[in-house]
């Protein structure tokens, strides 16, 4: 303590002088450290590339070598050629031509660096990304959507504040881990996800149950309510629990009976031409649903490509072929989502984030020095057949993230990765806590915001230490 104390003693003569002049006023004028930032966005759409989207084959093109039998894998980094975007100096890969045309509306981060959790399981890394905490931990950690729902509440009381689109809770041995982070955890189930596993059936989620028309549904609720009002128990006056039960039923009824909100959930009401632009698969239609919901006043929406082990972005073999299909699924809807939000004047107040639990590489599992077991199914040193061509190993040293709207810079590239393996983040690495802090900052929530559980504070970003990245904001 001595050094610091000596230092402070000298430094504090000024303090003392200030004190003599009525220093308490100084503290009154100085801003509290965890003051809530001014929100730049009211809504957020998280586009989740579940299963590990390979950056070298999507948003971070490197040395491209076309398929040819006999080529050693170490010579190849990307399996797609680079294409220009509408921003000078930002190139992405073939198959993302539509996103390339909206690149001037957003920021591309290439250096999202995530933890290497040893045996690299998707669900654990997805848990980490979605909660900010590495599992397992001692309390049930809330999903990022629950943090937002709890901190900000709904924008429109007829739309649940946290909607999750596209994930079926079934992923073999990882099912339970998926469930473990699709929850509000200790924040309480009021803030949990409103799950819509299939966007095509979203309308059903806010409609009366199958076979019940609106009239019957409404009669049933009205009878429920009148019975509650006339119950002999009700004569005892108000009761906290009784009132909370009735309020929850009323909230549900409002959601299920709000025609405007219900039509937002119903993507079949979308005009034909517009629908077609999103109609690339469930993810594309999920993007359409997200747009409609943001228009109607949703707060947090996640749309995922869906995690299904060894399918979709989880390319342990046949990577090139599968990624080509995945790009077909995401390219047009993402671009259309950005354009539609812009046309409707919503992009400024809506943050769109695209992310994945980690990236992939052809050769390296995890990061150099990782103890992670090689999980590639296409084990070979040289290309022999097409299934060997692609990114088949998990890579945690860098990954790509897109951000649009919500005060984020336009036409901006952040971070730099190595040109040769290992493709590590060499400039401006972005960790999960800092990325989350940036998202929360855009939404007007300080990164050290916390709620108490078991007498200790539990923070939005791990230990409250996430720092928003100022360079990303316009």
């Amino acid at each position, binding site marked *: 303590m001595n050094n*610091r104390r000596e230092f*402070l*003693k000298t430094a*504090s003569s000024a*303090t*003392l002088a200030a*004190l003599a*002049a*009525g220093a*308490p*006023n*100084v*503290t009154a004028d*100085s801003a509290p450290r*965890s003051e809530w930032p001014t929100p730049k966005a009211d809504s957020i759409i998280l586009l989740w590339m579940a299963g590990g989207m390979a950056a070298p084959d999507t948003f971070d093109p490197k040395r491209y070598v076309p398929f040819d039998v006999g080529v050693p894998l170490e010579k190849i980094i990307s399996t797609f050629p680079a294409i220009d975007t509408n921003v000078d100096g930002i190139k992405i890969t073939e198959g993302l031509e539509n996103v390339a045309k909206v690149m001037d509306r957003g920021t591309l981060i290439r250096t999202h660096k995530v933890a290497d*959790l*040893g*045996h*690299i*399981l998707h*669900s*654990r890394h997805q848990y980490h990304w979605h909660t900010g905490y*590495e599992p*397992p931990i*001692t*309390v049930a950690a809330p999903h990022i959507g629950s943090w937002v729902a709890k901190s900000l509440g709904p924008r429109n009381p007829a739309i*649940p504040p946290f909607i999750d689109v596209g994930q079926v809770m079934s992923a073999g*041995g990882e099912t*339970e881990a998926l*469930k*473990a982070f699709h*929850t509000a955890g200790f924040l*309480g*189930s*009021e803030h949990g996800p409103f799950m819509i596993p299939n966007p095509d059936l979203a309308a*059903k*989620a806010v*409609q009366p*149950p*199958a076979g019940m028309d609106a009239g019957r549904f409404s*009669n049933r609720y009205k*009878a429920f309510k*009148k*019975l*509650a009002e*006339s*119950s002999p*128990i*009700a004569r005892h006056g108000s009761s*906290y*629990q009784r009132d909370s*039960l009735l*309020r929850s*039923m009323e*909230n549900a009824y409002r*959601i*299920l009976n709000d025609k405007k909100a219900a039509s937002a959930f119903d993507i079949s009401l979308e005009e034909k031409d517009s629908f077609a632009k999103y109609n690339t698969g469930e993810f594309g239609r999920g993007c359409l649903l997200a747009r409609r919901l943001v228009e109607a006043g949703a707060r947090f929406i996640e749309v995922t490509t869906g995690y299904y082990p060894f399918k979709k972005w989880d390319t342990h073999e046949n990577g090139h072929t599968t990624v080509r299909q995945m790009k077909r699924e995401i390219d047009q809807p993402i671009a259309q989502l950005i354009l539609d939000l812009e046309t409707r004047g919503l992009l400024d107040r809506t943050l769109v984030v695209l992310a994945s639990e980690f990236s992939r590489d052809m050769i390296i599992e995890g990061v150099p020095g990782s103890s992670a077991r090689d999980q590639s199914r296409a084990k070979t040193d040289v290309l022999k057949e097409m299934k060997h061509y692609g990114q088949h190993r998990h890579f945690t040293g860098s990954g790509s993230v897109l951000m649009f709207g919500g005060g984020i810079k336009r036409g901006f590239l952040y971070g730099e990765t190595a040109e040769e393996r290992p493709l590590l983040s060499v400039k401006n690495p972005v960790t999960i806590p800092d990325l989350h802090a940036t998202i929360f900052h855009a939404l007007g929530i300080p990164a050290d915001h916390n709620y108490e559980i*078991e*007498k*200790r504070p539990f923070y939005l970003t791990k230990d409250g230490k996430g720092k928003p990245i100022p360079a990303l904001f316009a």
Partner: protein
Amino acid sequence: MRPYLVIIFISVLFSAGAVDFKKDIQPLLKNKCSRCHSGHEAKGDFSINTRDSLLKAAKPGDSGSSLLFQLITSKDPEERMPSKGEALTPKQVAMVKTWIDEGIVWPKDYSFAQWRKAPLAPRTVKLPPVKNGLKNPVDRLLQSYFNKKGVKQWKLVDDRIFLRRAYLDLIGLLPTPDQYRSFSEDRDSAKYEKVVDALLANDEHYMQHWISFWNDAFRNSYTRQYHGGNKYRLTNWLKTSLKANKPYDKFAHELISPNSGEQAAFIDGIKWRGTVNSSQVVEMQAAQNVAQVFLGLNLKCASCHDSFINSWTLDQSYAFASVFANAPMEKHRCDKPTGNKVSAGFLYPELGKVDPKASRKVRLKQLADLMTKKENGRFSRVIVNRLWASFFGRGLVDPVDEMDNEPWSSDLLDWLAQDFASNGHDLKRTMRLLATSQAYRLASVNPTPNQKPKDYTFKGPLTKRLRAEQLLDGLEQLGEAASPPPNRLAFKRHGLRNLDRLMRILGRPKRDQVATSRDPQPTTLQALELSNGEIMHKAVQRVGAKWASGKRTTDQLIEDLFQNAFLRRPTQKEKMLAASLLEAKPSNATVSDLVWAIILQPEFQLIH
């Protein structure tokens, strides 16, 4: 002018003697400084634990030359204290200034490092004499509590509310109208004891209800948890143990010092693939879970660093975790290895020791002996408190996992614990004591949200909400009631079913972590699921169809539904409302709608 005004303002507010340590200073220091400068923490080698330690940075009578005061008023964000969180308000600064200038008043022996530690030893409590015919020891002890607190007591509920309470609390099922009729017609004054005894003697339904309580506590999931999760489950062991009413000391002993892979399922924890935080290795999970479930204490914080919320240290947690390990564990602080091995040791050395040199098997046996021995009064207090909370909605000590907190009646807690321990650790005996007390028959009380333990006065059981399993079993029971026996309870009870979406949303835990209570707060998502969720909808239609297919008149249908759901006749108004929903000729659809409207009534969902 402004600074000058501020000084006047301050001097008016805080003239000499106006600052009170307990009211003004202690909470301020606690909020603003204690996280880094009290307990085990002494950042910058400075601690506010005692007046002496605080004097390192404060000079009595001279705030101006007190470093503490300089730091809280500093303009430099690098040096300003507190370094985390908001600065002190001018009012708070003024309070501290006055406090220092007045000589730093500090209550004798007060220390910020002190956490309440509940007594460990059992205590014999002398029962007050029987008064007003109240013979049950619970009531005898409560009578003096009520007198002291000035609570007007003993307003009892009627037979209908009592019976529903007893059935749901003891076996998790609704009483049938027949069961209620014979109970209400029974003129025997001992009928309350008789019905409680009969319910407790129903081993099968007792087990099917209480298994959920223990599954939550031992995080026993019927389905596979995670990659790498262990293959054994406690389910069959739990069923057998509950049906046999296995003495609780033996029950705990088998889990702590297991004789089979099945029994080991609790302490074996969940093995995650890959690297996990050092506070979550299976041995540490065992330490945390055994401490939480059987000792009602929180070792989670102290698994990473010395705790901020209680007196447990990192060394103590590692010593305890090492009991479950094959060899002494290396201590990690905040997940960083320290290079120090910590040999096995028990949390309460005053009760005895675990031999760090013995084999794991021997150590676990020693630990189980220590946990369950008579001198460990905490072991019994924890479980009787959990049972009290199950029946009365809130523990004698609250929360139930923080057993160092002060009980609202230590006489009641200590008497119940002592009675439990000296009568064979018989869970049903204590349940019987609670459920046959007049206290259990008191009118229910609305819970006050976020009430602090010190503000709580016991006036009767809290109104409870049906758990997921109880609500859905109740719906099934209502379905069976449509056609008379012998089909009674032919359905598989929800406590024995795998977790589904509906139960998950209604609050049944995933059981990847120890859960000793459920959140009773109703939520919009639950109401949505109950209103249009597929599982619920199908169940309601099934029950509705059963009622619609009978030969009842509309009038009889309404009467019977109300009798089965609420154990009472519908009022005229209710009859009219129900009839208008059923329409002229009741159909599957309209009857289902009435069933739905009935079972979601607060009167059905709450235990009054």
